[in-house]
């Protein structure tokens, strides 16, 4: 049995020779089993789903589109009228339309009030 100091003093060639003298026997079929294990590992790696390459690019595109929506100023539509008097007339017409449509609602409400009041009026007449 060599001491640690003796081993440290040995050259590389001597160490290799010693190792070759005391080489452990290789089990039968080890090489074949190793090849099989490596092949199985390669197959498993290939079968594992990997993130698609386009995903980072798609994310960047979506982020850019979102940024564009926020940052880029929206182009406004073109004025329908050049003449302010014509524009005023159109605004007036719009308010007229709004009033007419609202009047429909208030007419319905008025009719409903009258209908709702009929039983009350009938009861009043009976009481008199």
């Amino acid at each position, binding site marked *: 049995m060599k001491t640690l100091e003796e081993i440290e003093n040995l050259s590389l060639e001597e160490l290799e020779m010693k190792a070759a003298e005391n080489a452990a026997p290789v089990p039968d079929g080890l090489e074949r089993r190793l090849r099989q294990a490596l092949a199985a590992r390669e197959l498993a790696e290939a079968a594992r789903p990997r*993130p698609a390459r386009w995903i980072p690019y798609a994310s960047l595109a979506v982020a850019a589109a979102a940024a564009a929506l926020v940052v880029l100023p929206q182009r*406004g539509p073109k004025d*329908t*009228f050049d003449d*302010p*008097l014509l524009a005023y007339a*159109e605004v007036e017409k*719009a308010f007229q*339309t709004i009033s007419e449509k609202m009047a*429909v609602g208030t007419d319905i409400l008025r009719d409903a009030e009258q209908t709702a009041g009929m039983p009350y009026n009938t009861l009043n007449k009976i009481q008199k």
Partner: protein
Amino acid sequence: MKNIIVFFAALLLSLSAAAQNGKSIYQKYSDAENVSAVYVSPAMFRMIGRIPDLEVGEDNVNLSPIIHSLTGLYILNSENASINSALRSDAERFINAGRYELLMEAKDSGETVRMYTIGNDRTIEGFVMLAVDAGEVTFICLDGQMPRKDFEGLIAKQMAD
């Protein structure tokens, strides 16, 4: 990575929903066939406001008090059956996405009219009217800082006339 995609997709959708407004609806449908469209810009409203002595005839109501407070008017009147449904959906999405409050709803002879406002007790920042019947959809959107009192007074006066 999937989470990131879902996040960005949701962000994009929410941004596009938020971007929906009177202007975008106008731009989407104003060039379609059988659609009459009117847009009055803030600049035009300023020009209208500068017209001296904006007096109107006896039968008309003077809008000058409210004109100064308006910043945009979008009107779409569609008799195009192929886009009416989409126009209605977009308008409703815009109304629901905002903080619009239902002012009035009336249904008469197959026509449904809804009016919405956004703002507070004193000021109307936006007004939307959506009238839908069998073959026609009318969308009116007003933007501005309209004093609620003036706006309601104006409508009431026109109804009385």
